[in-house]
């Protein structure tokens, strides 16, 4: 990363972000009986041309976080700033202008493309919403360019989504996201719906694009190997909170939170000679309900190292920093 990028204000910043979904009982007289704390106090920053990976298991709140970061959903408390602006304080046209700078690639290339639109219409649709982006006369050329950028044949622009393979459809989704030349691309599980042999194509494409276009990326995934491969920094989420964050090297070489280490231990390595022994420590149980998170440290119910203090004392809020912060009361020292 260049020094100027270090000092420039972050492209995306979340501060003490929470999103609680009310749980109600009764039909006519709805009573609020609790809340699902999907996102519960998250701080993070994404700098220009940087890729941040958010890794966590299902139910940890990573997709709720994605919609908050994209200003598709209002936080219960806390703030999001995109390029220094608070999206929720903006008027309609101002918000629309801001949205040009942040775009999203979705998980499922089968449901995220309109089956009745051609490839060219799908990729060109953002120009209908942002007519100022590209003059009408140039749009055809720009669509062809975009298709080429993502490795699709521009002569296939009149084809419909069902005439493309899964990998090609995901490329269409990426071309659409790039149409307005965003500065940040948020990818929510961009390859998990694809065949193994096709995933690498899309991962390499994203890698090339972020370098060539100097794009900032937020990559949300359950797959540690995917996140490790693509990201400069990694944040590990558990039950609505970030439990550890650091550079890729810090997280991968010296994970300090027991949950991060458990994720690494559980991820199977495709090499039978490196098979984990059958007495290796495994996490017990499942993710607790985010409607009734455990007291103290949220990970303590599954943590092999939990002590009495973990039961009573809430963990510190993780401020985003470069010093590899972890929310554990007793962070692990070296890899064992």
């Amino acid at each position, binding site marked *: 990363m260049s020094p100027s990028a270090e000092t420039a204000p972050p492209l995306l910043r979340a501060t003490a972000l929470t999103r609680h979904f009310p749980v109600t009982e009764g039909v006519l007289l709805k009573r609020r009986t609790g809340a699902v704390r999907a996102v519960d106090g998250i701080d993070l920053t994404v700098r220009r041309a940087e890729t941040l990976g958010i890794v966590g298991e299902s139910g940890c709140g990573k997709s709720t976080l994605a919609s908050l970061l994209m200003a598709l959903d209002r936080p219960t408390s806390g703030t999001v700033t995109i390029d220094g602006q608070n999206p929720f304080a903006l008027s309609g046209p101002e918000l629309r202008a801001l949205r040009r700078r942040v775009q999203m690639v979705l998980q499922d290339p089968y449901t995220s493309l309109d089956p009745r639109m051609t490839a060219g219409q799908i990729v060109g649709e953002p120009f209908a919403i942002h007519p100022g982006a590209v003059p009408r006369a140039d749009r055809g050329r720009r669509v062809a360019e975009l298709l080429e950028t993502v490795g699709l044949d521009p002569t296939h622009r009149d084809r419909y989504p069902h005439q493309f393979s899964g990998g090609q459809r995901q490329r269409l989704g990426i071309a659409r996201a790039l149409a307005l030349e965003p500065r940040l691309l948020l990818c929510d599980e961009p390859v998990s719906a694809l*065949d193994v042999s096709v995933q690498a194509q899309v*991962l390499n494409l994203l890698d090339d694009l972020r370098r060539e276009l100097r794009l900032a990326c937020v990559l949300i995934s359950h797959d540690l*190997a995917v996140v490790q491969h693509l990201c400069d920094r990694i944040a590990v989420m558990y039950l609505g909170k970030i439990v550890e964050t650091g550079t890729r090297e810090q997280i991968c070489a010296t994970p300090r939170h027991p949950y991060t280490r458990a994720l690494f231990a559980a991820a199977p*390595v495709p090499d039978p000679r490196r098979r984990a022994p059958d007495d290796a420590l495994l996490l017990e149980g499942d993710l607790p309900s985010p409607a009734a998170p455990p007291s103290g440290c949220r990970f303590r119910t599954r943590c092999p190292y939990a002590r009495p203090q973990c039961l009573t004392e809430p963990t510190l809020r993780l401020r985003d920093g470069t010093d590899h912060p972890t929310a554990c009361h007793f962070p692990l020292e070296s890899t064992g």
Partner: protein
Amino acid sequence: MSQAAPPLLEVEDLCVEFRTTRGTIRAVNGLSYSLREGETLALLGESGSGKSVAAQAVMGLLDTPPAHITRGTARLRGDDLLALSPERHRAVRGTRLSMIFQDALTALNPVLSVGDQLAEMYTVHRGLGRKAALARAVALMDRVRIPAAARRAHDYPHQFSGGMRQRVMIAMALALDPEVVIADEPTTALDVTVQAQIMRLLRQLQAETRMGLLLITHDLGVVAETADRVTVMYAGRTVESANAEDLYARPGHPYTRGLLDSVPRLDRLGKPLVPITGSPPPPSSVPTGCAFHPRCPRAEPRCGTDEPSFRTLTPTGHRSACHFAEEVHHVPVG
């Protein structure tokens, strides 16, 4: 694994077609494998490779029409399952041969308590009374490490977490001590920490029962962690088979090699991915010759016309269906 043990399940030259009004689709085209007692064989393939259809054919779960088994045998200790009448096949299913499905929530009955569903196995197949059957069901839940089994037996499937539900599925599959268990993507719907628990449980249960386990999956990591031997399928055909260590260290087919080069790995930080170009073909338009040739970096003109034979490369039984198998096999993965 003892090489001398006689095969428990031996599938030979299995072909399955789907005949529809829009034409005939050959989903499985000459699949062969053998599974020994206490052994785990992985059937590795991507979507459309025919791995699940092949398993359903052996289980007798395919509907005819549209599915037709046009060739092949599947011998369970010598008895050809494919020659059985549907009634006889049903009698084998569950007792000698059982299956674990990917999605436990749809595979279990939502309106019966888990204990009752498991107990039913014993009342129907073993003629036990209700009380004795329920006791066996609780013991079984204990065996698959479901905590507080006696209490949880009264719960319904939706009250269990994904991981616990998959344990119930495994209990159901093991209830009648089958000789062979087929697990079709048993952990694909689960989180990685829960996946690790389930795969360990399957290994432990296998060591206890000496069952043969046929693991159907697309996941190279799960295969590496669990399988003794691997059969790789592509477009309905077997392209390679070997013991797991040989397959990962020195694959003998460009497709297998391509898969290994294209997955991001935690143990290889920063190593570039080398993708396979293109996509797997739909079963309705499988290329001629070697089905992999349009995507193969090694392909020559004859690959488009001549179907390669499936031949043996090493004395340990490493086999590959590639015209250049010896050459591909010669280079270790690195």
